């Protein structure tokens, strides 16, 4: 039992015991002496003084000696030992001066501590270096994966998404981390694929219709118990257009024997049949031409890529994306540029986009001052391969692969070559990967707060009354199993009415900013997809939920999600009297919102999300672990969360600290 006490206390107890034993021995000695003297007839009164005197001298002397020795022992042995032990435990090199009576123990402990510190430092360096290597490898892999044209999705053994790239997000709209993949791809096809893999195949083909109705082709592979899907929206090899070839064959087969009758007079019925078959042949040929020309590139190339190595006009729109194979088109343009310069021209690259709002085509121009180029010379240049190392890839081939052509024009005293190319609708600029492989290790979803899939969101509005005001901006961040997934929703919304200056003063959103923004139906429908199956979290949730629910009859987007209010969670931790504004809450939790982001929907959303993640950790420590616990606790707080979860129509009008 003594071993639980500190060394110094134990030493103190030992010395106290020693003092007690000495005092007891003294008492016994005095009693024996007293008894002996009394036996010789010495009167008690006469010996008492001498005995008391002897007892006091011996007792105080012995006690003083014991205390002094204890003090020396404590100061020079027990305390230094504790210091050395504490130093060794925390990794600090101990002061040897303190341990000068402990012989070599002090220097030895110091050497040991220093040696340990050195190896810890070396280990930390090695770990940091390894981490930097991993970070570099991760960045490399991210860039590699981001540019493969196919969609890549990885799921955990339970079929929940833990990785997807930008192409997958394009093929499977609404895909998000921690959502079941079966919401996007038919379960039957996935099960059949899984069965083929279980039968021993390393990877297997997958052909299915996505839930968005798109036909997809791909490969499926088991990785670490989960599944990797590589998806394309066109087949790996174009199937021969069998039906068209069959039609051609049929017309030709009918027509050829009929031609034998041409030598004599032709009966009208036969002439009619020949005409019909000939027309059928022509139609089938046209259809075949169209079918075969569907191979134009679908990837986007930036105008800056296409203009590389050329002399660009100053007004070239740099962010314009065209449907083109950058290598082929840039190579062809450089080849033509070179040939033109050999003729003495100094061409510049320009681009013309029609002024319509949704122009679908841009015309790339090589412009120069001088005579227009004869078409025959252009045709001969197009017959040459821009890259001599690929002799079969002529200018004509490159143009045919893009289903386009190039011609010469003269306009405004300038000669030019014109190359029309379709405008690419979109191209993700960012690496475009979303993943969290740790999802698989964090077990199945449950009603634990830390396991919920949430969307933290914030709205900016034209005013404070959900009954009459409208949303002008909405932002959201997804959280899966206690971590931000990196998936975000952020859009301005055209409220269809002027924004009062008082509201603009709060959030900085003007009428001009929302003029081209999506309307409420479009924005809330998209937000509905983003928040499907998630718990909605907001600061002063009744306010934001009120706006979402009020809009439901107009937009058809019903938000029947469960909701959590960070004001209420804050009140559960700090009591109702503490301030619960977003500023007060983030300050208490040590979260910094850059001032320029405060009162933007995304800035406030990010702050609320970080506050929420810290709040749930604190609530868990308080024993409020599950959604049900929060609901039960909320009843005690009589405020808000019930309101936030109340169906549309009677939501409280928001008057909280978030001014919309």
């Amino acid at each position: 039992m003594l071993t639980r006490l500190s060394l110094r206390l134990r030493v103190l107890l030992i010395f106290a015991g020693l003092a007690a034993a000495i005092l007891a021995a003294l008492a016994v000695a005095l009693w024996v002496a007293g008894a002996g003297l009394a036996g010789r007839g010495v009167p008690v009164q006469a010996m008492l003084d001498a005995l008391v005197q002897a007892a006091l001298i011996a007792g105080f002397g012995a006690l003083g000696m014991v205390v002094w020795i204890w003090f020396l022992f404590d100061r020079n042995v027990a305390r230094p030992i504790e210091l050395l032990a504490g130093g060794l435990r925390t990794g600090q090199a101990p002061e040897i001066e303190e341990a000068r009576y402990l012989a070599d123990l002090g220097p030895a402990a110091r050497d040991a501590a220093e040696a340990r510190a050195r190896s810890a430092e070396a280990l930390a360096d090695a770990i940091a270096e390894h981490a930097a290597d991993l970070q570099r490898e991760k960045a490399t892999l991210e860039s590699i994966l981001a540019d493969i044209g196919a969609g890549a999705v990885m799921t955990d053994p339970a079929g929940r998404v833990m990785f997807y790239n930008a192409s997958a997000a394009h093929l499977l709209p609404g895909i998000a981390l921690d959502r079941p993949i079966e919401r996007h791809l038919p379960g039957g096809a996935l099960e059949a694929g899984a069965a083929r893999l279980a039968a021993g195949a390393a990877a297997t083909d997958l052909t299915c219709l996505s839930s968005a109705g798109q036909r997809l082709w791909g490969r499926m592979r088991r990785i670490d118990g989960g599944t990797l899907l590589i998806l394309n929206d066109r087949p790996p090899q174009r199937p021969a257009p069998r039906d068209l070839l069959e039609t051609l064959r049929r017309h030709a087969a009918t027509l050829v024997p009929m031609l034998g009758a041409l030598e004599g007079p032709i009966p009208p019925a036969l002439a009619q049949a020949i005409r019909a078959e000939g027309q059928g042949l022509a139609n089938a040929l046209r259809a075949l031409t169209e079918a075969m020309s569907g191979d134009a590139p679908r990837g986007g190339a930036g105008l800056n890529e296409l203009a590389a190595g050329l002399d660009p006009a100053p007004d070239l729109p740099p962010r314009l994306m065209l449907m083109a194979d950058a290598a082929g088109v840039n190579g062809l343009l450089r080849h033509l540029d070179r040939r033109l310069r050999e003729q003495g021209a100094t061409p510049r690259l320009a681009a013309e986009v029609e002024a319509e709002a949704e122009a679908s085509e841009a015309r790339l121009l090589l412009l120069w001052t001088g005579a227009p180029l004869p078409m025959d010379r252009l045709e001969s240049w197009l017959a040459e391969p821009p890259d001599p190392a690929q002799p079969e890839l002529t200018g004509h081939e490159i143009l045919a692969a893009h289903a386009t052509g190039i011609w010469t024009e003269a306009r405004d005293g300038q000669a030019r070559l014109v190359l029309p190319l379709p405008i690419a609708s979109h191209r993700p600029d960012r690496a475009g990967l979303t993943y969290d492989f740790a999802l698989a290790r964090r077990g199945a979803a449950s009603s634990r707060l830390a396991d919920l899939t949430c969307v933290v969101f914030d709205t900016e509005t034209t005013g404070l009354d959900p009954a009459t005001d409208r949303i002008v901006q909405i932002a959201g961040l997804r959280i899966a199993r206690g971590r931000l997934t990196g998936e975000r929703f952020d859009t301005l919304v055209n409220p269809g009415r002027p924004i009062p200056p008082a509201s603009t003063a709060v959030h900085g959103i003007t009428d001009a900013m929302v003029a081209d923004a999506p309307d409420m139906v479009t924005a809330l429908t998209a937000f509905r997809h983003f928040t499907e199956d998630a718990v909605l979290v907001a600061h002063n949730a009744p306010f934001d939920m009120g706006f979402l629910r009020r809009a439901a009859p107009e937009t058809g987007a019903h938000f029947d999600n469960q909701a959590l209010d960070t004001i209420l969670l804050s009140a559960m931790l700090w009591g109702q009297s503490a301030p619960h504004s977003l500023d007060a809450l983030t300050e208490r939790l040590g979260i910094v919102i850059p001032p320029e982001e405060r009162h933007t929907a995304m800035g406030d959303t990010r702050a609320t999300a970080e506050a929420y993640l810290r709040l749930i950790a604190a609530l868990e420590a308080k024993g409020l672990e599950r959604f049900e616990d929060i609901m039960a606790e909320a009843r005690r707080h009589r405020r808000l969360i019930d309101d936030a979860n109340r169906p549309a129509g009677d939501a409280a009008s928001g008057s909280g600290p978030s001014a919309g």
Partner: protein
Amino acid sequence: MMASILVVEDEDNIATALDFLLSRDGHKHRRMATGAGAVDEIRASHPDLVLLDVMLPDVSGYQIVQDVRADPALNDVRVLLMTARGSVVERRKGLALGADGFIAKPFELSELRAELARLLGGRC
């Protein structure tokens, strides 16, 4: 009304068919089998319309259109291009170079007639 038409076409079989169709409709026409000298011939005979194949063995039909349009004296000569490459961009290219019409082979008789009627106005 009868129009004068110059057919520039290297494929004999198509030329024969065109000869038959144009004669039947009463047009005055001549045929050249190569592109070389076609522009000189157009200057000399000044036809109402040139029915011009794009893919000629020597000079491209596009070059002939370009040359015809470069000569202001030939402003009133209509040029109707014919090609077996029927893509949309070929049509745009031909029209950008100054052709007045474009038909893709194989064409139907009614299609050719409609184009001729459109380009020749009252003359057929």
